[in-house]
Each structure stands twice: as C-alpha cells, then as structure tokens.
C-alpha cells in the first residue's frame, strides 16, 4: 500500500468504528482538517463537538462525556493537547475517565511550521501519569489496529500520530498487540551477538530499517524493533535485546529526556544489565525546514543511525 500518514489511518479507522459503536464521539479544537476528523464530522454531526481553540475545555468536556457512557476521542496537535497536562492529569488520569487523546503532528517531522507546532515533550509528560496508556503506531495496519483497540480499551489513552506519510513496515496480515515491542527487521544470518538493536518508535522507524540494511551490507548485525506502546512499556523485550546485543540504540522524534530513550534506559537499569544505550532524538527544540532536512540535521536518518549503531565498536 502507498505510504500514508498515521493521522490519515486514524481518521479512516474512527469513521469505520463509529458505524458500529454509537458510544464514539469526537471533539475538536479548530484543527479537524489537520487531525483528519472532518469525515467523521460530516457523517456524524450530532456526535461531533467543535469546541474552538480551547483545549482545556475540550479535555474537561471529554471527561464529562466519558463519565456519561460515551467514548470521546479528542484531537489536536500533540503539543497543544498535551500542553494542557494539568487538565489531563485531573480530568483524564486521576478521574480515570475513558477518553482517547489523539495528538497529531508529532515531532520535527512536521517541518516548516517550526518548533511551536511540534510535539516534542508530550510523551515525557504522559509517561508520568498513572492510569495512562501511550501508543505510537508506525504504519497504516498498526494504526488501524491500535485505534480499534484504544476505543475498546477502558481508560485514558494517548495516541501519538504523524503528519508525514509513513511507508508500510508491517505485512498486511500483521497482528498488533498492546504493550509489546515487535521485531521489524533481522539480518539474514542470526548472529551470536548483535552489534546493535535499534528500538524505534513513530516517524524514525523506516529510517532505522534502512540503517540496519546498510549495516548488514557492511557485514554487521543490527536488529530493528518497534515500540508502538510507550506505556505500558515492554521491559522484557528490552532486557532480551540488552542480553544479545552489544548496544541498544533508541530513536524517536521527541526529546530523549522522558521519552522512548528514557524508557529503554530504565528497562536496562531495572533489569541490572550492563548494556550501553545510545539515545537518538531531540535534546533541544526544533526549527523550520523541510521534514527531510530536519530528520537529517537532528540525526534521525539512516546514516546517523548507522553511526550510532557502529561507532567505537
């Protein structure tokens, strides 16, 4: 299938789910064209709540709808939605309301609009909240299944989606499981010890696969794993990788502090393992440029990832 932004896959999937599940309602804060809820809005106008540029109120209204039996899906850019973290803390997490927070425009992958529109700290904020689930699917089939699961799951969920198109990294018959890291790519010959295992999430996932292929061409064994669930996090998988790899490389389009990179380090440390971790991601704000230029500049493309895997081996 042609590459598709995970925000598009989300928009299509909620439209399908809405046909069968009358509990599903959608709230928007003036970004429905970008978060891909317009089709839902047109099909189900009475189940759609446009609240204007007022994200805090959207979070609170979603809590009230959830407490009255609805399954509210509320969307905005990741930075604007999760920026209302205290409202989310109380109205979503503390009250354990069944709301589904959808943050699109994750990371520097949005490009030209620049830092103020980039979700770069949202995962860190949500990881600190009890009762929260965080998902970041990497392609179309994964997003479809993650969205369907999210609607069925009881409790607050945050799903982080891309603006940019994502190529398929899974087979069409892939069965997604929540809370599990799946291996996307292995070298043809299984090594006694991998030079590196890349644990990727979201936008950088295809670049990680490209890096692993380049490593294989140079005679190195690099595996690529995909962390589509950031909370709960698959500590067991990370521990397995830490035991059979010389190093782990985490890569995310997000700040490494509090994001996937932190989660990987926590898993390694809590298992008492001595595997080094190289964290690739943002350590600063972003800036304006094309998405491709930014991915290159901030080290999220294959050449940089290859270097992270093999440097000083």
């Amino acid at each position, binding site marked *: 299938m042609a590459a598709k932004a995970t925000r598009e896959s989300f928009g299509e999937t909620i439209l399908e789910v809405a046909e069968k599940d009358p509990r599903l309602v959608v709230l928007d804060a003036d970004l429905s064209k970008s978060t891909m809820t317009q089709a839902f809005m047109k099909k189900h106008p009475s189940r759609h*709540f446009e609240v204007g540029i007022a994200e805090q*109120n959207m979070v*609170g209204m979603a809590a*009230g709808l*959830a407490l*009255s039996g609805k399954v509210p899906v509320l969307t905005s850019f990741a930075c604007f939605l999760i920026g209302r973290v205290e*409202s989310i803390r109380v*109205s979503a997490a503390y009250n354990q309301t069944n709301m589904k927070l959808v943050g699109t425009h994750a990371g520097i992958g949005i490009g030209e609009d620049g830092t103020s529109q980039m979700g770069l700290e949202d995962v860190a904020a949500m990881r600190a909240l009890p009762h929260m689930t965080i998902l970041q699917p990497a392609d179309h089939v994964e997003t479809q299944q993650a969205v369907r699961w999210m609607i069925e799951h009881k409790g607050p969920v945050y799903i982080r989606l891309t603006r940019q198109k994502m190529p398929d990294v899974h087979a069409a018959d892939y069965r997604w499981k929540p809370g599990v890291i799946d291996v996307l790519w292995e070298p043809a010959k299984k090594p006694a010890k991998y030079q590196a295992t890349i644990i990727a999430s979201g936008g950088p996932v295809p670049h990680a696969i490209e890096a692993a292929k380049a490593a294989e061409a140079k005679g190195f064994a690099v595996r690529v794993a995909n962390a589509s669930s950031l909370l709960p996090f698959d500590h067991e998988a990370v521990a397995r990788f830490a035991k059979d790899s010389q190093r782990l490389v985490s890569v995310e389009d997000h700040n490494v502090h509090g994001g996937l990179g932190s989660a990987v380090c926590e898993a390694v440390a809590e298992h008492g393992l001595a595997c080094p971790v190289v964290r690739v991601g943002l350590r600063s704000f972003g800036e304006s440029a094309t998405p491709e230029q930014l991915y290159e500049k901030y080290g999220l493309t294959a050449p940089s990832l290859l270097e992270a895997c093999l440097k000083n081996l």
Partner: protein
Amino acid sequence: MPTATSAPADLKTLTTQMRRDIIRMIEAAGNGHPGGSLSVIDLLTVLYWKFLKHDPKRPDWEDRDRLILSKGHACPALYAVMAYRGYFPKEQLMTLRKLGSPLQGHPDRLRLPGIEFSTGSLGQGLSVGLGMACAAKLDKKDWKTVVVLGDGEVQEGQCWEAFMAAPKFKLDNLVAVVDYNGGQIDGPVKEVMDIEPLTDKLRAFNWEVQAVDGHDLAALEKAFAKAWAAKDGRPQAIVANTVKGKGVSFMEHNIAWHGNAPKKDDADKAVKEIENGR
C-alpha cells in the same frame, strides 16, 4: 422512585446540624476549609433535598441528576449533605482526611460513591459538567447537571472557555452556581483579581443569570425552580451571594478561616453559636 421530595419540612434545622458537623469534622481532621464549606452548605442543602433526583442506595443510577462540586475544597459541606441523605453513616464524617478514609481532603469519585467527579484543581468542573450535559442531550435524557463553582475559581481561564461553549451546545440542562463568598486564600476576591461585573459577564456570554441571597433557603428554592424549568437552550447561572464562614461570628468575612481548622476552644465556641442560631 427516589426523588428529592422526601425532604423534611425544616431544612433550616438540617443546615444547623450540618454546620455543626462541618466544624467538628474539620476540627477532628486538624485541617480543612471551614469558610467556603459554611458559605456553600445552604445551597447544597436546597439542591440535595428539593431538586436533585438521586438515590443514595444506587449512586450510579443512570437517570440521576449530576452535581459536581468544582470548588472541591468545600467538600466537608458536601460530605455532610451526603451523610444526612444516607450515602454513608454520619459517624464516618469524623474520618475526614484520615488514612484510608473515602472522605479525601478533596472529593475523590473513585473512593466515595456519589461523587460525580474528583475535583480540587479549580477551573475544571464546569467543562466536565458541559460534557455531561452534552451526553444527556445526545441521549435525549432529561437529567440535569449542576456545577458549583467558587468565586475565586472563575479567575481560571478554563471556566471562561466553558462559559463560552455552553450556549453553543444549547445546554439548558446545565446549571452553574457560583458561591460568591468574596474571599480567597490571598485575600478578598475584589483585591486578588476582581471578577466583577460577574452577572453582566455571564449574560454577555449568553447565559440566563439570576442573583440570589445564597443563605435564603426560600429564595434559593425559587431560583433553582426557574433554572430547572429552562427549555430555551440557554444555560442557567445562579450567582449565590454568600458569606464566607456563615453562621460563626469570628469566621464570617475572615479570610483566615479559608483553610484553617479550629482548635477545640474555637470549635466549641463555633458550635455554640451555630446551635444558638445567632
């Protein structure tokens, strides 16, 4: 059929008893918020005995009316009302703020059945009430949602996002009550951040607004009756003019009693005044 109509004739006596219990439970807790609890108790009493459809034996009854105490710090008043309405034994009031008690320092819906929303972070309750009222409209149900806000609380920006949104969704099934006691932690509301002219502001936001003496039970009853009858799509606001610390001379209008617990001497004095109905 559980209704509010099984009320004893004398709500005044009830408010006296509950005022006394508010003082005693906060005294026992060693901390808490007497001022705002004493200002809000009368309006909560009228709501819980005369208006709200609810069933203490079935707190999750689908067709109940919902009340959110958005000014969560006044929960001693709500706990007293709930105990007297039979949600839990009155003796339990004295466990307020103690380890393991369902009576948390601010209301917690997951620990105490009958609490609709866990509050304490000011500014969020009205938005949640909007969501509930939207759900009732969507399901064509006639239950009401009442949100009780503090006057200082409306300084929060989120409140105004919610005030702006409610008329858009034609929520005439939503009643916002402002407990206008004039005080907040750092001083008089007027000085900390004046919210005047509040009724004009709410009218300008397309709400139907009534101002009422928040300690006059008959006047409150009349105002709620009017709000309950609304059918024209306009959300209903009631600005209840109240006295912080109402019923205890040395607490009235005294910011020092916003968040301070009385020691035994003061508590005894307060209870004596309440019982003498000064």
